[in-house]
């Protein structure tokens, strides 16, 4: 929970609510980008971010994204994050 996970912003999905689509090691996940808006929504496409519980909290570079992912994999935390995302998808469908 406190380590977060890196992802790459690939699309702005709802400018009104600052929602974007992030690619997290091949898993597409909607994230809120309010905290990293800086110079505007469109400038975020292609950028790497550190995502905490569905919110992009910091802009990072590609090398940092890779290093962070390696650490998360070693700690088993990457798997936990993905499982949490999939469990959440099931919860939304009412399949708990």
């Amino acid at each position: 929970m406190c380590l977060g996970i890196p992802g790459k912003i690939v699309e702005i999905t709802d400018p009104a609510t600052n929602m974007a689509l992030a690619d997290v090691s091949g898993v597409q996940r909607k994230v809120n980008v309010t905290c990293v808006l800086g110079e505007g929504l469109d400038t975020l496409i292609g950028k790497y971010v550190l995502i905490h519980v569905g919110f992009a909290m910091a802009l990072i570079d590609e090398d940092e994204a890779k290093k962070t992912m390696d650490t998360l994999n070693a700690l088993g935390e990457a798997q936990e994050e993905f499982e949490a995302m999939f469990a959440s998808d099931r919860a939304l469908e009412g399949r708990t």
Partner: protein
Amino acid sequence: MKYVDEFRDPKAAKSLLKAIADKIEELGATKEKPIHIMEICGGHTHAIFRYGLDKLTPDGLEFIHGPGCPVCVLPMSRVDECIEIAERSEVIFTTFGDAMRVPGTKGSLLQAKADGADIRMVYSPLDALELARRNPNREVVFFGLGFETTTPSTALAIQQAATEELGNFSVFCNHITVPPPIKVLLDDPLMVLDGFVGPGHVSMVIGTKPYEFIPRDYGKPIVVAGFEPLDLLQSVLMVLVQISEQRAEVENQYARIVPDDGNPVSIAAIDDVYAERPTFEWRGLGEIDASGLRIRDKYKLFDAEEKFGIGYATNRRVVEEPEGCACGEVMTGRIKPMACPQFGKGCTPDMPLGALMVSSEGACAAYWQYGGARSAAE
């Protein structure tokens, strides 16, 4: 050095380890009289054990594991209140998965779910918001817990709910803040702490200034650190260098992620939605002044405490820890996990008695997984 070759840059790791060993020797620290460095964050605790940093560094350096695992400091009475809310027929109770197995006095959320309560694990408070939109006839409650890293996410979710006038969404707020328990530990005459490795992602939100009281009022160094093993080693070295040069400052090893002023958008959202509680209960540490947050009156429609009349505002229940559970002493670094009479016996990750065994960020779970206790028991 069996782990060093796994590091991204073994050469850099070896050179940092050598520099740490040299500093420990220069400071005259030994196994009997070690330098005590507390890593505050549970993520750091996990990384230290996973990479064996406690074993790779000399005996004259001792890591004290701090209270920075949010589910580990969650008192039993808060878990009981979650279950009370979740058992209401109109409620869909949503929570991060980490909190599911934390024991309360009447069991955990996982057991309450098995008994029929509609409890759903979500990845994000945004998913709880979406559940509220999809289920207008149900009350969707999100269990807001965690330090400053997760506090902005629930603040922004509450602001969004207010914008949408989503009246069936509320947050059961149990957010806590990092600096107050550090002050409690530093005020404790039984604690011997020579310096701190500061939390990385909490600091990404709040910046480095909230730690200035540590060098100013207590004369101790703190270095905000990243999570990679090399980050941790470098941060430990920076603490040792400060000690050897008789300096005490806030230093930032993780500046690539942590701006000294933090994240202004996150701080503004926290300030808009939350106010300090006069006091809040921490498992193992007791009541700590100004250490918890409540939802401000202007957002009270989204405050589960207001909505259901349950929670800290209404019911101050202090519950004794289970018999033989030494989480409090482990949490304050007075004893190591293995010295707890229940460690590995009445308390394992599969059947946790105390909260430190629940999360991978808890000191007991880390000792169990990486300290050889698990293989000894199996």
